[in-house]
């Protein structure tokens, strides 16, 4: 479980995160959503320690990350896997070398054991026969899958994904979402995903945190979000007619009632 307590972060005079508190549930897919500039990436970077917050605490299973010394922080970081928006694969290394890198750095296993583990995770992300390829030879979706394989190769307790669907077609996005969801359940990882993708929101969002201009605007699950009365949230998520229809379909699916009936008796 990751607890955020009163996180604040400013760049110069501009506050980007304003007193955000939330709890990322263990073994679940936790989504941070919000429009561009709402502070979700900064919040995620504060969570993984790439930015130090101006105020507040990030607590990993009872340990306040920013009050730990360097070695203790390193220990927590070894339990973190992260999938970056641009994949962040090492250009000069092959797929196999990229995935084996954390194993080479942090384990003393034999080459054969490390190779076996790397192949296992590459299989898990449905990427076979790409071991000898370089990142430049891969498609966007393949790069994300390699990055995901690298992120989970050390069996992390926490997985962070920064906009995993950006730049991908809808079908590949769904594949990545499904992988993230399956891996979260399979390895019992606490997963935190930054996303704009409405499909991800509905499909994998066990817990959703909606950010607006650096504030926590709403939190709940993907079941609750369709009944939310928060205007900003509704405006953000159900912006198009198509999405409004989809919302009503989902309401019908969840309650067995037509949306008009629900509107008369709004859910809490």
């Amino acid at each position, binding site marked *: 479980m990751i607890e955020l307590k009163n996180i604040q972060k400013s760049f110069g005079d501009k506050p980007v995160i304003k007193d955000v508190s939330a709890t990322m549930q263990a073994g679940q897919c936790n989504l941070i959503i919000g429009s561009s500039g709402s502070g979700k990436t900064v919040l995620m970077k504060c969570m993984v320690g790439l930015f130090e917050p101006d105020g507040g605490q990030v607590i990993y299973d009872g340990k306040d990350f920013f009050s730990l010394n360097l070695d203790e922080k390193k220990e927590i*970081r070894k339990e973190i896997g992260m999938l970056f928006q641009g994949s962040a694969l090492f250009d000069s290394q092959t797929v196999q070398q990229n995935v084996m890198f954390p194993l*080479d*750095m942090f384990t003393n296993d034999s080459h054969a054991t490390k190779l076996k583990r790397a192949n296992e995770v590459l299989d898990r992300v449905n990427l076979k026969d790409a071991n000898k390829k370089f990142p430049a030879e891969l498609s966007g979706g393949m790069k994300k899958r390699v990055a995901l394989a690298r992120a989970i190769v050390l069996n992390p307790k926490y997985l962070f994904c920064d906009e995993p669907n950006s730049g991908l077609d809808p079908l590949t996005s769904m594949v990545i979402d499904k992988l993230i969801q399956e891996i979260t359940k399979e390895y019992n990882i606490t997963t935190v995903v930054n996303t704009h993708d409405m499909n991800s929101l509905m499909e994998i969002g066990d817990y959703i945190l909606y950010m607006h201009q650096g504030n926590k605007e709403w939190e709940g699950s993907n079941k609750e979000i369709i009944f939310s009365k928060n205007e900003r949230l509704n405006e953000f998520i159900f912006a198009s007619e198509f999405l409004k229809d989809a919302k009503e379909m989902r309401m019908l699916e969840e309650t067995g009632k037509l949306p008009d009936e629900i509107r008369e008796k709004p859910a809490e």
Partner: protein
Amino acid sequence: MFRGMFARPENGKMYWKEFMHQCNDIGIGSLGIVTIISVFIGAVSTIQTAYQLVSPLLPKTIIAQIVRDTVILEFAPTLTCIVLAGVIGSKIASELGNMRVSEQIDALEIMGINTKAYLIAPKIVAGVLMIPLLIIISMTLGIWGGRLAGVAAGILSGETYDRGLLDGFKAYNVFFALAKSFVFAFIICSIPAFYGYYVKGGALEIGRSSTKAVVVSCVLLLIADYVLSALLL
């Protein structure tokens, strides 16, 4: 930047591998250009020295002495290092800059790796080790290039040149050149590493920081050259 570099490695083998990789990049990777410029510098020095020595009273061996001393004292360490500042400096700055912009450095940080120690320290240590070796090669090739040009142009015979090389040779000059090359090597690797590691923005900024790194390195090389000459000669 330097404070963060001195930390216990997460895995000595991986750091060693990175160090060897940098030795190969900096040392072997620059050998071609060092060979070319050294041979030509020596050759041109011989021809120009002969051109200016018009007095028949001066022995021909003096040409070899002048070429030897200018190559050892100045051309091999300074000129080669200015070229290396461009070759190695831009490579280091753009490599680290690209890693910063494409979040590869963040990815290493999140894995719990000390990126300054893993990415910068091996480059500086490899540079400080390999560049003086390149300078020794440059001195040798420069002097040999001078002999080659002198003989080919009929300025002096090989024997005369060799005799000139031994006349009034001071081992201290080689020590001075090596002392300079250690300082220059540190500048060539650390300044671009700083500009590359702390780059912000995108592709345009990587290019700018590379250029700036090379320019600053060259200026610092010239300043260090003057200071070391004033102090050690």
